[in-house]
């Protein structure tokens, strides 16, 4: 592990230089707020951007992604035989993401990279990607990431963690991928390891002081699934919900998807789209029977998945990194912090 | 109102046609369809509301 100093006057030049190797993604600002986008040459990531409305999960897991294709023309030798859709998995670097978003990607990895099956689309994209995060000196008011196993200077899932020191970045290079990225940018001004680490520790401590939400999650694991499921509070939690998919789409850890086929002329494509447990269609059987037919069922599913099923299944804490995006974007102000507290404190009478 | 909204969205009004044809008016139906297809053919291919599968 080593530290590098990057003078901000060299930053842009370095990023442009790395384009020889990397496709660059980063936050950009438009009239609808900040978004993570692929940056064309000359386009620079806004490193001090507000939290992006959408998380960086789409870099590995696009909202719509073609997975298989087939030719339906029966005169062709291989008609109706599906093939993997062509995608490029050349190296890409995601710059300026927040540390909690890097942890989120590690949580999503639990789903896509398992001992039984490996999702090749997500995993290939993951392997091609270098994550360059930036420590948050001033976490947003919605940030509760210190309660979710990370924090404003968390290193989990990052290849490089930058600290913003006004005129320069101090970069903590965490992995070989991170080293390769720094080399491709030509960032090579080493910094003293001991001093730098002290500085990181101070920044981390200062930043964490700014997070006022301390969310209790300690008692979730010991509760029974059925007790929480049958608890009386779900009707109240769900009342205001309009069952849009906003919370799940803005969430960096929500991984559920749908698979759809389309054809045009003699070409068929199978692709996957993000899906949302908020939609009745998500679980509707072909027979018309729906095991989660009411919105109370669906709201409960979302919170039970994040705050209980996931906790029990993986023993990695809750399926939430505390970014606060769902809290900020929910049209009816359903607040996962409140629901988590209710669940954590619930005792069956 | 549908036509107006489509036009407002930038769709060529000549691509949308409303006619009242009774099931008994076969000749009128043929004439109208012919007229519309000629008109649309003259306008050429549109990219609006047409899915691009080349990507």
């Amino acid at each position: 592990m080593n530290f590098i100093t990057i003078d901000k006057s060299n930053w842009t030049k370095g990023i442009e230089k790395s384009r020889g190797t990397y496709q660059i993604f980063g936050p950009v600002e438009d009239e609808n707020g900040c978004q993570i986008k692929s940056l064309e040459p000359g386009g620079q990531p806004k490193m001090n951007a507000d939290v992006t409305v959408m998380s960086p999960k789409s870099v590995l897991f696009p909202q719509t992604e073609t997975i298989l294709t087939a030719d339906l023309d029966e005169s062709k030798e291989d008609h109706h035989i599906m093939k993997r859709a062509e995608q490029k998995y050349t190296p890409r670097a995601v710059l300026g993401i927040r540390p909690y978003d890097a942890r989120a990607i590690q949580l999503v990895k639990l789903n896509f990279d398992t001992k039984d099956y490996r999702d090749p689309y997500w995993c290939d994209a993951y392997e091609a990607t270098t994550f360059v995060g930036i420590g948050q000196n001033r976490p947003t008011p919605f940030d509760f990431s210190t309660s979710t196993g990370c924090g404003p200077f968390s290193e989990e899932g990052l290849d490089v963690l930058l600290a913003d020191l006004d005129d320069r970045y101090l970069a903590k290079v965490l992995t070989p991928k991170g080293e390769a990225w720094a080399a491709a940018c030509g960032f090579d001004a080493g910094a003293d390891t001991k001093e730098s680490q002290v500085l990181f520790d101070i920044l981390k401590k200062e930043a964490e002081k700014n997070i006022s939400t301390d969310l209790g999650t300690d008692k979730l694991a010991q509760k029974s699934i059925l007790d929480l499921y049958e608890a009386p509070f779900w009707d109240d939690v769900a009342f205001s919900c309009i069952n849009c998919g906003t919370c799940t789409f803005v969430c960096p850890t929500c991984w559920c998807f749908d698979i759809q086929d389309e054809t045009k002329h003699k070409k068929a494509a199978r692709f996957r789209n993000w899906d949302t447990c908020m939609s009745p269609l998500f679980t509707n059987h072909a027979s018309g029977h729906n095991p989660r037919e009411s919105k109370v069922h669906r709201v409960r599913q979302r919170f039970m998945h994040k705050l209980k099923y996931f906790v029990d299944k993986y023993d990695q804490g809750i399926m939430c990194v505390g970014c606060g995006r769902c809290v900020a974007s929910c049209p009816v102000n359903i607040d996962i912090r409140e629901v988590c507290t209710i669940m954590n404190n619930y005792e069956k009478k | 109102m549908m036509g107006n909204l489509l036009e407002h969205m930038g769709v060529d009004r000549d691509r949308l046609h409303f006619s009242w044809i009774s099931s008994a008016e076969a000749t009128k139906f043929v004439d109208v369809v012919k007229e519309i297809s000629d008109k649309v053919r003259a306008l050429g291919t549109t990219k609006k509301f047409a899915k691009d599968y080349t990507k």
Partner: protein
Amino acid sequence: MDTCIEKIKAICTDLLANGEVEKVIGFAGGSIPMATRPIAVTSEADVEKLVFNAFCGLNLANYVSKNNLPKNGAKIAVVAKGCDARNLVTHMVENQVPREKVFIIGVPCTGMVDKRMIAQRFEDEITQCTQDGDTLTVTSALQQEVIAKKDVLRHNCQYCTHRNPPVYDVMSGDPVEEQILDQPFPDVDHIASMDPETRWDHFAELTKNCIRCYACRNACPLCYCPTCFVDESSPQWVGKGQDKTDITTFHFLRAFHCAGRCTDCGACVEACPMGINVRDFTRKLNKDALDLFGWEAGMDLDRRPPLDVYSPDDPDDFIK
């Protein structure tokens, strides 16, 4: 409007105490600055949770449908701004909800504020917002601003001509003066003045960030179909991916399904996480409904909507 809340609470307490209503649907305070949360109040003790302020931008008619009416003789009470009341009337005109099941607590409304407009004035995230009459005091870590409500009104509220509920059971305050507008649809006129390609590009740019979360649809009281056309699989009317043609089709058809029914309440835009002004679609239809049929939705329980009835003098020059 700001004294309304005390009156609203008093009305609700009475209604719940004498059993006339099973519950009151209103707004409660939110957990973050500039937010409110729809709530169903069923006990007198919970009446205190009700608020009414400049951030009650959703439409509560959305929480009344034929599936959630009380089974017995009781009613549901709804705290209703002009637009909420008009959408309740639309529910009734469309035979979704009988008039006698709903108790409308009318609120004379001076408009809701546009949170994005406020957020844009700040470098960083807003941490606190308080309202005192027509003035908002908004604070972030770096700055504090005192903002006049009228300067940050939502677009639909700026062009609202029915701030007072046209139909109600009781009013919670004196009616406010209605606005008279010389130009009720300048935004529609502006788009209409562009050439067709520019108009097409305008709508393409407008919807480019759409994530198809359907918050616009689900926040809308008009969208009560048991199965929406986008969710239909047989036939499948529209693709489910992020193809721009599918996105445009969704927005165009969603809007068209609101033709002659939309009250321009702005809940769709309020709900959109991506800040898309989907009212650019519906406003054109509202303008046409007014120009062609002299119609504004939700004003009258006894008049049928123009697309519901045939009249010999309906405009028919589009039929060739």
